[in-house]
């Protein structure tokens, strides 16, 4: 069985140690976490954990079942038809060609978010794959620091 990439949303009670239960399950059972984001769901006592993982069919099935078994888990969504976005922040020197950088960012749903005397900071938000293309393209402007955000996803 070949490995596939999966985006899984886990809706959990927003209570202490719930993230440890989720991440501990991955560590303890030897599953991969490629990225993980977590935030409260507005107007509720729930949180959404978005996990990107990979594994074969049996492993993915186990991951979703084991996640569902956790007592504070309300729902596990194995995304198929989804919109996914990842954000990235990148710092460049102001000596770089700022106009070029701005055009590049705009191609990836981004722009300049901070401009200082020595550095500028940009953001981009797109699918993970496209964020990688963006970062490849950004290499020629010698980025000083790159911060990727992990992905969030919503079922279509």
């Amino acid at each position, binding site marked *: 069985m070949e490995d596939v990439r999966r985006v899984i949303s886990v809706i*959990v*009670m927003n209570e*202490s*140690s719930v993230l*440890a*239960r989720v991440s*501990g399950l991955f560590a*303890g059972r030897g599953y991969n976490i490629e990225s993980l984001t977590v935030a409260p769901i507005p107007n509720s006592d729930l949180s959404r954990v978005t996990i990107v993982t990979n594994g074969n069919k*049996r492993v993915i*099935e*186990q991951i979703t*079942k*084991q996640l*569902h*078994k956790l*007592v*504070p*888990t*309300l729902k596990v969504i194995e995304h198929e038809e989804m919109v996914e976005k990842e954000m990235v922040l990148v710092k460049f020197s102001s000596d770089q060609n700022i106009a070029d950088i701005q055009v590049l960012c705009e191609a990836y749903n981004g722009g300049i978010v901070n401009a200082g005397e020595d550095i500028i900071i940009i953001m981009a938000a797109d699918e993970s794959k496209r964020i990688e293309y963006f970062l490849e393209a950004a290499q020629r402007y010698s980025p000083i620091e790159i911060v990727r955000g992990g992905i969030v996803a919503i079922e279509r």
Partner: protein
Amino acid sequence: MKMSGAQMVCEALIAEGVETVFGYPGGAIMNVYDEIYKQNSFEHILTRHEQAAVHAADGYARATGKVGVAMVTSGPGFTNAVTGLATAYTDSIPLVVISGQVSSSLIGTDGFQEIDAVGISRPCTKHNYLVDDIAKLPKVLKEAFYIASSGRSGPVLVDIPKDITAEIADFKYPKDVFVETYKPNYKGNDRQIKKAAEAILKARKPLLYVGGGTVLSNASDLVRKFAKMTQIPTVETLMARGVMGDSNPLLIGMLGMHGSYASNMAMSETDLIISLGARFDDRVTGKLSEFARYADIIHVDIDPANIGKLVDVDYPIVGDVSIVVKKLMDLIKEDINTDRYQAWREILARYEELHPLTYNDSDEVLKPQWVIEQIGKLLGKDAIITSDVGQHQMWAAQFYPFDRPRQWINSGGLGTMGFGFPAALGAKRGAPEKTVINITGDGSILMNMQELVTASEYKIPVINVILNNHFLGMVRQWQTFFYDKRYSETDLSYQPNFVALAEACGGIGYDVTTKEEFDKALKDAIKQDKVCFMNVIVSRFENVLPMVPTGGALYNMLLEHKDQ
């Protein structure tokens, strides 16, 4: 009513009908122990080690079907309890373990006897709580009992900081419990059940594969009826011994690494596995790619994560064994033709004749299998048998004539040496009318031998039959077969005086080397109201056979008994 957190704990235990708490006090749990001192509703048994407290609660739960309760203090008290939690977790035994924690203000400061109990126990409990607010305590306790005993049962830890047990607040124990995110499915999907019923009617060589879940679901009577109605042969896992009753003609035997030849061949040749509360453990399946190659699989399990975990399943049914079996019976009772499986039953009968479970008895030296058969002859269905882990455990599972579920209590999943004796204490407390025998080895028994003192203090007369081969026998057996007889650290020739040890702790000891001595000692021990150590010297190099070597196919068994 206003009361302290400690009182709330006691009131909750009383409301849950708890009769016995096994535990060990200490600094962080003292407030609760002070309340235990003041009440008369339940008894507290002071074990001499926290691990034993949890095993005793576990043995109590396995013998009675009720939730076992243990109580320990923070830090080392809790860490000692972890093996007990893990043992219960792996075998899905309902427990509520209450641990003290350092005061809320000290949490995270590396305080005296502080350890992250919920962090450590997360992977070995069904669920756990750190109570951070006394207002939540009644609900947490109610939930703990509910979660421990519902769905796939398991241990739940409630960790309570010392300031919370001291704090005063309103107490109202909830009558009902509702956990929005936790809804076990008992009923099974009717469409899948219907398909499974059709598969059973169409099969030629169906096999009932019965696991510990049938014990936990109290489904033994139904499963026996199902087998009788369909005349489908049955194999039991280690955890299910007793479910069918050994006099049942449809029981082929125990399967797996040390299962009978006929059972393992049945699994290898069946065309339809009807798995009831079993989880295709590696000790059952052997090499997975060779496992049950001709079979479609009906998998009935309360835990959806067990289904499809190791083998592909054709008829997945998430539900309680009792409920699903009842539905299956209703669906097939009109059309079942038991003659259809006649040829299959005959094949299996021939396998049973070809290689029955056996051993070479001797008059020179006691054979461990003889000792177990003899206990069976003398006590049969009247005894509860607990065991530790190793050769003696496998021989007990193979050679004791089990008659009913909950008669056989062992650490099947985690394989915890030291489990048997404290579990026997718990079982005896839960079923005082039964004789309780712990079949153990000279390795395992030393791992919780301090419980002699508990047994004497509380007059819990369990009989420890130590099958003493002066070896860590199972590891020695593997060294014989797979490590060219390099007996690395398994020779236990240096021995304590078991008789003196028992006597020093208020019990009775027997040294046994012959059949006559064994008979005499056992008959005497049954009459006593004292705990005993029966030091039974058995042949040193006896092996547990049949044996499926790890990673081998289930049908490739080492069968022969050659005396060494």
